């Protein structure tokens, strides 16, 4: 008997000492704790919602919204359903995100490369820009641009004209634009198509020059023709309308970018570009000095070294953190709500205030931003694979 109980306690001791037991036990305990917490929270949520008389459900999205939205890409009337209002908000967010990503990439890369400039002023300027902008909160910058800069522009009756092509006043910025939305989309598609075609033509030319040593004249001519065709489409095919100032103030024609949109875009681009500039700088710095020296000793000049040798290698380091900067920019567009730009978050808040359904609205918001971020990650991952080191 004594022997039996001894071996039993021995087994228990062995089990307590066994790492495999603890690994499983720890996971079971974690799962149990998470499960208990979740059921506590969700149970409370359920009780609270029942007490408020609002069972969980998305059918309210079909009810008429009843509020008007200042600017929208799609047709929207106040008695359209909530889901359509949310689509309007999503559309406004997307215009902000698309323009923001494009401009941030350009400005951020320029600022990052500028910190390697031999010109002392350009180098200093880039460093000061990064040091100033990164250390001031985005929301404060947003208010500054909206109230102190764009709000201080003159009123429409003595607005600023830029070469007769664009106008600035405290209601917004007026720029030349295609006469219809369809033409504008076609123009953007033509630009993207031409850029892709040009890229492949250039690659083809490089390949032919490497393989045969030929001059690549044919491809160069094709490239020029492509450029001319694109220019013709853009200049003559878009049926541009140029904004014109009216006697006594105001503007007709062209595209009006509201003050909210312009301020939000400027603030986002300036803020995010400072981070992108640091990423680009770190990426270029990560390319070993020997690469510079080897390329220079082959007789290439500085611009070519940067473009053909250093930057392609730096891209490998640059792309992954760029992904998270683009995601940050996407999420930060929600701050535009603070200056009353009707983007996704702003419309969602109004919807919540009118329907009193925090949980459903939050789920919609979360899903939207998650999907946007996932899409960006997907595209950037493709891009990342393209620039990765090709090893055997």
């Amino acid at each position: 008997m004594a022997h039996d109980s001894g071996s039993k306690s021995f087994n228990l001791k062995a089990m307590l000492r066994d790492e495999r037991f603890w690994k499983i036990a720890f996971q079971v305990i974690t799962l149990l704790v998470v499960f208990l917490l979740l059921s506590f929270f969700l149970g409370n949520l359920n009780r609270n919602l029942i007490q408020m008389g609002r069972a969980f459900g998305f059918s309210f999205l079909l009810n008429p919204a009843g509020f008007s939205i200042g600017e929208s890409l799609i047709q929207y009337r106040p008695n359209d359903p909530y889901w359509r209002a949310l689509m309007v908000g999503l559309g406004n967010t997307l215009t902000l995100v698309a323009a923001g990503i494009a401009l941030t990439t350009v400005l951020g890369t320029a600022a990052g490369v500028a910190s390697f400039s031999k010109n002392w002023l350009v180098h200093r300027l880039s460093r000061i820009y990064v040091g100033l902008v990164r250390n001031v909160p985005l929301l404060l910058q947003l208010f500054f641009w909206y109230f102190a800069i764009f709000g201080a522009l003159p009123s429409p009756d003595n607005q600023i004209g830029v070469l007769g092509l664009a106008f600035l006043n405290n209601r917004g910025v007026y720029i030349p634009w295609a006469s219809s939305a369809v033409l504008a989309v076609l123009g953007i598609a033509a630009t993207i198509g031409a850029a892709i075609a040009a890229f492949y033509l250039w690659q083809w030319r490089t390949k032919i020059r490497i393989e045969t040593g030929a001059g690549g004249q044919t491809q160069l001519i094709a490239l020029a023709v492509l450029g001319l065709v694109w220019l013709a489409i853009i200049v003559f095919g878009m049926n541009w309308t140029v904004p014109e100032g009216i006697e006594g103030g105001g503007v007709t024609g062209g595209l009006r970018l509201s003050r909210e949109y312009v301020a939000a875009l400027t603030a986002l681009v300036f803020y995010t570009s400072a981070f992108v500039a640091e990423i680009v700088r770190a990426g270029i710095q990560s390319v070993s000095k020997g690469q510079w020296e080897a390329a220079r000793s082959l007789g290439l000049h500085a611009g070519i070294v940067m473009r053909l040798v250093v930057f392609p290698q730096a891209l490998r380091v640059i792309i992954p953190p760029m992904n998270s900067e683009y995601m940050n920019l996407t999420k930060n567009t929600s701050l535009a709500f603070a200056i009353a730009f009707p983007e996704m978050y702003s419309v969602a808040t109004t919807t919540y205030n009118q329907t009193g359904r925090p949980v459903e609205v939050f789920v919609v918001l979360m899903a939207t931003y998650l999907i946007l971020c996932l899409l960006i990650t997907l595209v950037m991952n493709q891009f990342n694979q393209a620039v990765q080191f090709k090893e055997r």
Partner: protein
Amino acid sequence: MTTVTPDSFSSAPPEVVGLGPVAWAKKNLFSDWFNSLLTVIIVGIFSWGAIRLTSWALTTAQWQVIPNNFGLFMTGTFPSGLYPRIWALLAIVCGLAGLSWGVLGRNVSTLFSRSVLIGLGLVCAFIVLFPPTRPSSLKLLPMVALVAIAAAAGRQAGRKFPSIGKWVSLAWFLSYFAALWLIGGGLGLTPVSTNDWGGLVLTLFTAVSGIALCFPLGLLLALGRRSALPVVRWLSTAYIELVRGVPLVALLFMGQVMIPLFLPIGSRPDRILRAIIALALFSAAYLAENVRAGLQAVPRGQNEAAMSLGLNTPTTLGLIVLPQALKIAIPAIVGQFISLFQDTTLLSIVGLAELLGIGKSILANPSYLGRYAEVYLFLAVIYWLFCYAMSLGSRKIEEKLNTSH
């Protein structure tokens, strides 16, 4: 056999040959036509901008809004009769800061070097000359003196008792609760409702609380994501990815609404507490990714070596892996703290009167209508100073911990 005299052979780097100003400008500003063009354009634009800005700041701008509301900017609508409590808090922070400075610098030959003395002098001059701080310079100047005295004392104490660092850390920890007591009252002090907390004090309080909460949480999440146990790994990953996909403002706003819904009927935590929780939950996910990057940078051999010495998982992590990982991750972690500090501005959207929120309500006052540029520039300088100080501190810690050669 020849002897090499130090005079003829030196391992020091070659002497830097100084350039004259003209040669310097030629090399750095006008090396070719393109650089010259850039220089001319930049100088042109910036001198125009500088002239416009100076003339605006000296003539059009009405800076009166800053000194008139300085108390509001610093403490919000905190009852002015209770300001001595805020001064006491500032004194505690100054004393501890000086003490830590002295203890950290105990091995430096001269604590008050010339540049430090010039810096202190500049701070004193600024306090006396800057109009908003001038009325309280009789209280602020002793604070500077307190920092200096505490630093000297800390240095002496640090030399005598090498283990004093632990006690200073403990004092910082306790000072948080002292701050809570001094701001919020209770236990013998007049209670102040959280509606009256505001200004820079609230900004700093939420930032410090958020940082203190998000660091351990982020650490746990990072370890969870790297764990060999699948359940723990999945849960951590799901949390991190879900939170990182949502804008903070959505989390904050919904946190104000939803946290009460998740709790038993009738319980409603204070809105500052709700904001701090949302802020910490959000930052923890980002911090976890920064720590994970640090964990990944520790060579696997370190882990295996510790295991083969017979250390179990917690001791391996705590004694071998984490110290190295955190050292690598310091810049990223401090970067996350800086962005948390900046994110406290979003509390103004959910109706808390922190620094930006109090700025908004001052601008809503009819007598300061349209003074946007003045107020926002002033706030920008404050935020910039704090963020810059944090990144400077991170660089100092990095240098101190850098043991590689």
